[in-house]
């Protein structure tokens, strides 16, 4: 959980009105708005902000399709209320690449064919972004262990390992 979790005064407000005064930065853009206090972060991103790159796969924190970064930390956005992300910087897949230019991780995932149907892909990219920010040279078992929460039914895991290994092996 990120350090800037909701403060107690906001929790009190949440309890009485069923609404919450949200102050959040998403992909660098600030948003000040009132949201239902029970609104999930994933629904806020997809439905309110129309940032549909974040996917919803299970609503129970099992599949990892909805992973975003909250203050740089990978979070399954179906397990977090929008209110809990107040005061935080959220990065979605839309904030990873700009104008159709893929970053090095994204390019590597394509070059090693670690994308098939693509539904798990945005969550996977953000999970791996978090991993690489902590551990620039992860081992195969560290990569597999880190993405254990990202279900890919198409079976790209082996090529994800190849993609990350090729990325971290090359100077960049």
């Amino acid at each position, binding site marked *: 959980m990120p350090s800037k979790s909701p403060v107690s005064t906001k929790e009190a407000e949440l309890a009485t009105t069923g609404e919450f005064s949200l102050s959040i930065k998403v992909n660098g853009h600030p948003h000040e708005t009132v949201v239902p206090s029970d609104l999930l972060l994933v629904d806020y991103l997809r439905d309110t902000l129309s940032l549909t790159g974040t996917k919803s796969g299970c609503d129970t924190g099992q599949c990892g399709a909805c992973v975003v970064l909250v203050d740089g930390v990978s979070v399954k956005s179906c397990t977090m209320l929008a209110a809990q992300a107040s005061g935080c910087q959220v990065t979605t897949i839309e904030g990873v690449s700009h104008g159709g230019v893929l970053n090095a991780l994204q390019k590597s995932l394509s070059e090693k064919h670690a994308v098939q149907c693509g539904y798990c892909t945005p969550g996977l990219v953000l999970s791996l972004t978090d991993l690489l920010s902590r551990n620039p040279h992860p081992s195969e078992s560290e990569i597999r262990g880190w993405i*254990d929460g990202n279900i890919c039914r198409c*079976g790209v895991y082996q090529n994800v390992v190849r993609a990350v290994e090729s990325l971290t092996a090359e100077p960049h």
Partner: protein
Amino acid sequence: MATQVFGAPIPRREDAALLSGTGKFTADLHPANAAHVAILHSTEAHARIKGIDTSAAAAMPGVIRIFTGADVVNKMMPLVCIFKPAGVETHFPPHPYGLPGAQTALATDRARYVGEWLAAVVAETRQQAYDAVAAIRVDYEPLPVLTSAEDALRPGAPQLHDSVPGNLCAHVSHGDKAAVDEAIAKAEVVVKQKLRIPRQLHQANETRATVAQYDEDTQEYTLWTNTQIPHGNRFMICNLVLGIPYNKLRVLVPNIGGSYGSKGYLYQDAPLLLVIAKEVGRPVKWVDTREGLPRTTVHARGQVQYATLAGNRDGKITALSVTNYVDLGGYPATNGPATPSILTGRSVTGAYVIPHPFYEVYLAFANSVMLGPARGAGRMEAMLLIERLVDLFAGEIGMDRAEVRRKNMVQPDQFPFENGLGWTYDSGNYVAALDRALEMAGYKEIAQRKAEARKRGKRLGVGIGSYVTIGGVGPSSRMGREGLIGSVWGTAILRVHQTGDITVITGCQPHGQGQVTTFSQIVAQELGVPIEKIEILHSDTLGMPYAQGSYGSRSFSVEGAAVYEAAQHIKEKAIKVGAHLLKAEEKDVTFADGKVQVNGDAAQAKTLQEIASALWFDWDIPPGVQPGLEVTTYFDPTDFNFPFGSHVAVVEVDEETGAVEVVKYVCVDDVGVVGNPMVVEGQMHGSVAFGFGPALMEEVIYDQKGQLVTHNFDTYPVPRPSGMPNFELERTVTPTPINKMGAKGAGDVSNPAVAPAIVNAVCDALSDLGVKHIDIPLTPEKVWRAMQGK
């Protein structure tokens, strides 16, 4: 062209949109003013519905309208089952067509499985729709529950459908039973095994979703839905279910977040949402939930097989007899009954010459979700059966398991080979693939490794899964004889614009297999055009004749073959017009590197773009040639194609816990000539992973009351990255004669080898404990019990 594009491992053109989150899936669409639909599911497996009280729900905030079965029963016919075992009599049948027991979109008087749709709530927001669903009260009168096919077929079992006596939907058989019984009676060795193959969930990451719209002014319907068969949906909805003009429905398919066979149907939501959109006068959107998925989307596998294999002590197999029992669910799915009937039924001889094969299946209705195919459909069930029986036979006669396989495999000089159950295998070298897989796995050193593992408290075993799987579905007339309505050819429209840019419209519907890339490679190679100038359109019924979609390992070897053929027709016209523009005879020019050039004088040439420009702008066209450079091509294969291979699994079983770890997994597959080896390898990774699940952990469980126990990722685990080894892949290449590219199917090809390889390995590891068979999934508890003889 200097560089070889076809066959090169180029990264996919699809990836950028998917990697950057701009690729739209159905749930990402939200037409202006769209309302949300949520579904009330039956909580009873079998019950009479005495009443549905929607009054409290209707008064809830945001609720626009609630539909029950009574509200729509006069607006739509039942759903369609396109399979009829006796063969298709007509392609414009009166409806209800196919097998009896067709389902209505919303139940009216009776629910036959947990999850059956009883009502649809339309509300302003998704949350409001779900809240209102929870407020609907249903008065159920519970009825006795049928929990399996054998339960449903016993004398005196309760009737699920008045039109289906004894709950027997159909009995299908292949082969000469009397001859097989005689061969078994005469055989030196007979092995018998019952195999219970549980149901599997596809569990695509993306649940099913549908958006529907009706335009009152034009009376046009539009449907966005994640189906593998947009054209099939359009046909069935218009002509069979809703009775609306064919020209008034457009079906579009956004990106699909995985299917594996789960989205190739006509489900309730598509026609129902079209009706609702018209009734409420607004676009409507339904997105299923993870909890909803196993209640609303077909399950797969689910067979109880009684198998007998006979042979001689010299290792020759002489006969195989199989009786199979399959629970189709409460109703027949669009094409679901075809999987056990055809795909399992004609495939159970596997890679072997078996002089006397017989197969029969009893297809019964019981109180469960409808059954359909999943990746490796029917063939996985068939290969598990034959590969287990071959191992048991080898054990019985004391012969090495690989040697028994070599002795019985179809040999290279036997093709085309008729397997006795209706398949004609096209080409292959089955023994070569087996021997290579054994070599890669270190089969000869296994005894030594077993001893070493025992010192660590592990029992090591090795198992072989050899297979032949039907691909390239399929030849249309044959499919008709099999009882499946509809054409099954490939369709391609190829247009060379005056600018030299190329548009291809394909009949296939990609959902992860990379056809935009691989079909581009076909065109780039054949027409000598850079890939960047080629666009591949698909998944929109507008401007496209009837086409099939993607399933049955058919995209590349049937739809791709249509693209290949279309390119040849373009070349033929280009040569004719190019020669005219060059003032040369046709026989004196050649099409090469994207140009028509005069033989022996490459400087005299016209590019494809110049020729296209002439044809579109009508400057200088030879007599008898029509303007334009485009073609619509159909490719109807003369037969299926038959990929094959052998996989070898090395497992370690923990002596204390029974936990199975696959420590090495080797695949040698043959899918003929490939367009993009990297994409094919990805398909194999997926196909193998999709086999690891049912082999080790996946199983749909219903309790005795017909309640679904496995309904999310908690209760129904799927393989995750840390639980799987690296798969070691090699391919042999045996072209098929069925299409000019020599390509066979690849999508669900290698899946059928996985469960047999792993089960055979575990049984090998436990052989000295007297363990002969364990049914999948091989959970630690089951394996531990087998080790204890419990």
